């Protein structure tokens, strides 16, 4: 029996086509992740040399590579600038970028919508409202911020998901609509909460709402790093289920995926990721949208590669954006969310047109 084949169209979108065909394998994933991780470390080192205060490059590198054990000729103040202010901020940027990118990639796979993103879906806003409630009403307790941020993110996720459920399930269009509804509602909630604050705090809150990596404590940094790494690992472990879910919940179910369990885990872990990012640095937009897209364009849609790769690339993206934010009008600073939006929005338009 002969059926005519379709016309010859070679997909140009796979960078690693040559290696073991187009399929994602363990070896390929390891190779890609190692390469990207090396790039991340390099970028962190380079960005540590940049800032509003000039530090001697060689001495700084030497100090960084010895993990601060030897001062390598840096003065006490320079050492403090490098290790107490700059490096923690860069690491926080990496944690936030990685968290948001992985959350975005997971939402996109689970909700089968390439436009799903924590920011656009109103989940970042939910976390922001949670954080603000914590700051205004529970300011004394340090852990209230990440906790309320996580709750806010989770509630927003569930509301968006519920709103988007039609008879045919959550189609991408309904999802975006639900996301817009939730985002606008929560934005007004944020405005409402800001009116409860006095005028002097409003300026700093507006800055924070646009993403601000400068005001974070050591505890929040460790929490953010821990959540970023463990969240990525958990979601990567479910990557194969996500691959199948990407092609339809019913199909995935028929093929053996425990759909409700995976969905619950992804929602919870992604909300944790978004919550911890927003609690420490406000809403940094476009990372969860643009980074997974770029990763998929180059490496394919297999989540077993794209989830870890998105984590590392998201970290790189925010670290670079934050470096721009803190050096471009030094000694003044811009909110990092403004830079990610400036880079991300045109990039997103370009990606849309490519499809």
């Amino acid at each position, binding site marked *: 029996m002969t059926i005519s084949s379709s016309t010859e169209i070679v997909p140009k979108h796979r960078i690693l086509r040559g290696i073991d065909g187009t399929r994602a394998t363990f070896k390929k994933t390891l190779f890609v992740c190692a390469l990207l991780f090396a790039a991340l470390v390099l970028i962190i080192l380079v960005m540590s040399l940049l800032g509003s*205060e000039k530090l001697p490059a060689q001495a700084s590198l030497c100090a960084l590579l010895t993990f601060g054990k030897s001062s390598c000729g840096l003065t006490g103040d320079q050492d403090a600038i490098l290790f107490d202010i700059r490096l923690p901020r860069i690491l926080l940027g990496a944690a936030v970028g990685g968290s948001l990118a992985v959350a975005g990639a997971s939402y996109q796979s689970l909700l089968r919508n390439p436009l799903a993103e924590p920011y656009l879906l109103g989940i970042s806003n939910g976390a922001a409202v949670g954080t603000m409630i914590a700051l205004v009403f529970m300011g004394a307790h340090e852990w209230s911020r990440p906790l309320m941020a996580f709750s806010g993110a989770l509630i927003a996720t569930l509301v968006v998901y519920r709103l988007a459920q039609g008879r045919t399930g959550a189609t991408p269009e309904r999802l975006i609509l639900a996301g817009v509804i939730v985002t606008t509602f929560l934005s007004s909630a944020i405005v409402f909460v800001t009116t409860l604050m006095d005028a002097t705090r409003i300026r700093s809150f507006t*800055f924070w709402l646009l993403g601000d990596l400068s005001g974070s404590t050591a505890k929040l940094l460790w929490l953010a790093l821990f959540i970023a790494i463990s969240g990525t690992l958990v979601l990567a472990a479910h990557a194969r289920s996500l691959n199948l879910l990407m092609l339809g919940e019913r199909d995935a179910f028929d093929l053996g995926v425990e759909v409700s369990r995976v969905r619950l885990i992804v929602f919870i872990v992604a909300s944790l990721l978004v919550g911890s990012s927003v609690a420490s640095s406000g809403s940094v937009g476009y990372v969860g949208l643009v980074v997974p897209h770029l990763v998929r364009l180059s490496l394919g849609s297999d989540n077993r590669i794209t989830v870890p790769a998105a984590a590392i690339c998201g970290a790189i993206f925010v670290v670079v954006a934050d470096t721009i934010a803190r050096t471009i009008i030094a000694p003044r600073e811009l909110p990092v969310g403004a830079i990610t939006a400036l880079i991300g929005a045109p990039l997103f338009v370009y990606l849309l047109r490519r499809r």
Partner: protein
Amino acid sequence: MLKQHFSQFQTFAGTRRVLALVLSLGLLLTACSKLNNKKTDSQISAHQTTDEAGRTITVPDTVTRFISLAPSLTEIVYAIGAGDGLVGRTSYCTYPAEAQKVEAVGDTLKPSIERIIALRPQIVFVSTASQLEAFTNELEVHHIAVYVTDSHDLEGVFHSIERIADVLGKRPQADELLKQLRGRVSAVAEKVGSRPPVRVFYQVSDEPLYTIGREAFITDLIKRAGGVSVTADIPGAWPKYSAESALAAKPDAIILPTGGSMGDANSNVASALKRSPAVANGRVYKINDDHLSRPGPRAVDGLEDLARALHPEAFNQ
């Protein structure tokens, strides 16, 4: 057939006639209203003046009803004895105590236009520090004059006091006030003039870290109080400051504006400054933020607070 054509022509002409009637009525009405307006305008004698933003505005010769949309301007009004004419204020205008009896029209950022119009003021005083230019156009449509103040240093504040007093017809009282204020300012200058200026970091908020820049009038206050702001060269009025630069600046004294309208916010030094000489030597001073953030008569109180903090030896006699 001719009849058909004729009747059509008639209705067509009829429509035209109605249209012409409506148009002329409309024109007549607008002309009348314009005439009426002219009448009300000419009933009140007014003059033209320029406000501090360079705008030419029409101000009545006698002002009996006015509104202030900034706490600093409310303080100025009461300091020159014009409090009786104040018919509206913002919810933040809490000083002096008499001001709290006046009706509030909202906050400084977004006051209620309807409230303002309903109070029928003749003029509204606005401070650029509150970023109100956006709605001044709306008020002008209702023939409510808007006077914008704009002071970047202490002399600018004194100038504002004079101009506002001119508009409200309280020049003699203002002159008396300014004589006192200028006297206090010279006294401070005498005490601290000969001493080396102290390097000061003015912390507007700790997290995120905000400070003052070139355009803030507090920079001038610090200078007059015998100090120099380490951020005096930064463009803008309230820049968000890099923690690294704050650490590298190593100020000898840190000013924390707090305790007034801000409550206990900003009562801690930002972590980047914990290693500074100011903290090491215990030279962290909390000053009532209302004395420092309002470009009005209490700014001189703030000047004295600053001078006492920066040069305590000069005031111990």
